[in-house]
């Protein structure tokens, strides 16, 4: 299969790459760009571990073909420490013990980031719905929802 050319912005940096058109977005991010913070769990869009932000929207990067990256503005977990809300979320996840094995954490933080960017005043129920596409088998979710709620609170205060 011939390669396709992709130009896009990822974590604020411009890219111009050749990709296999059968590659999924997660393949490009992890294998071609070497950004392994994005995790592959179920591979069928159910677990949310691979969540990234594509043009402002949370998407499951295992359910998006590489071609959709053309011209796009993409954020992955690697950018979070450099962004105010991302940083608050990371700190809040640590403070609230919302991380146990950690495999789901990047996906949760990306979903929370997309949600709070669109709706900074999200209620607890809206937060629960916003991360309904992310599975965690360790924490039981309460700490995760607490962490997102706290980060939103700090964000509003600043």
């Amino acid at each position, binding site marked *: *299969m011939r390669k396709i050319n992709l130009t896009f912005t990822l974590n604020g940096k411009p890219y111009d790459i050749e990709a296999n*058109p059968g590659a999924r977005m997660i393949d490009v991010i992890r294998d071609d760009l070497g950004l392994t913070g994005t995790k592959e769990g179920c*591979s069928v869009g159910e677990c949310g571990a691979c969540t990234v932000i594509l043009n402002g929207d949370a998407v499951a990067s*295992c359910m*998006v073909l590489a071609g959709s990256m*053309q011209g796009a503005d993409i954020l992955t977990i690697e950018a979070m420490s450099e962004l105010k809300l991302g940083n608050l979320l990371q700190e809040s996840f640590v403070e609230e013990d919302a991380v146990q094995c950690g495999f789901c954490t990047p996906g949760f933080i990306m979903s929370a980031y997309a949600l709070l960017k669109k709706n900074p005043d999200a209620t607890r129920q809206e937060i629960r719905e916003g991360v*309904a596409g992310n599975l965690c088998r360790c924490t039981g979710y309460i700490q995760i929802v607490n962490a997102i709620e706290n980060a939103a609170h700090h964000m509003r205060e600043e």
Partner: protein
Amino acid sequence: MLKFRDYIRVESKAEYEKAIASIEGPVLLLAGGSDLLVQARQDDRYEDHTVVDIFGIEELRTIEDTEGHLVIGACVTHEAIAQSLLVNRYAPILAEAALSVGSVQIRNHSSIGGNLANASPAADTLAPLAVLNAEVVILKDGIESVVPLAEIFEGPYKTNLGDRDLIVSVRVPKLSADVRHDYTKVGRRKALSISRMTIATLLQTDENGVVTRFDMTMGATFPCPMTFPDISAMLVGKRPTKEDISEVARALSAKIPEIAGIRASTRYKQPVCRRLSVRILQELIGDEQHA
């Protein structure tokens, strides 16, 4: 790595028509990918297919408010439908159904046109589109035509659309504000479930409580989306009593073995349909009337 023959991304309908004319071999239209990417993982079934990615065609991503209809572009995402003020005003049952699709990550990268073309009997938008009397605009051999929704379906995961036929949009007649609706989804778990059954209901009454419009159908139950004029006729023109409601519930659940045959799920689905139908209709009609 998924196996395709080639991948082409098109940005307009004109580019699309040019692309399909020059492609040799079967074409696979990509309108988001939440079904296609799952299916492509299973085997090499699409090895000789050329993927034509139509998800970025702006003309297919608008919701237009015409005099009598909402015209929803095929590539409008489920999330955009769920959040659309127009859809929430004129076809709120469809907004609710779109919100029940998958998770926000899936809703952001899946489309109503893709949902129709995939033709899963469990597609959440089908029962609401059926009671709304939706039509589908198809581009075939350079000509656009409007066909009733049910006409494109042949069976589970099967439409009569050719691989180069494009669903352009879905035309949904606008509901007036006094049409009440209910969308109920039964799944194996609360979030992110594939529907076991959906029930879509529209009900309108005049100032005397006489039913002027009634449409009710199930999804994830029949091979194709269905509407039932005989069921509608059971309430139209009446001020429904408790008995009328029970009759409708019985008649609706009787459709399950009648149309889908006796299946392993029939013993479960029939009573679920009957009891939910009673609950839905009591709620929509209001308790004062059949007290």
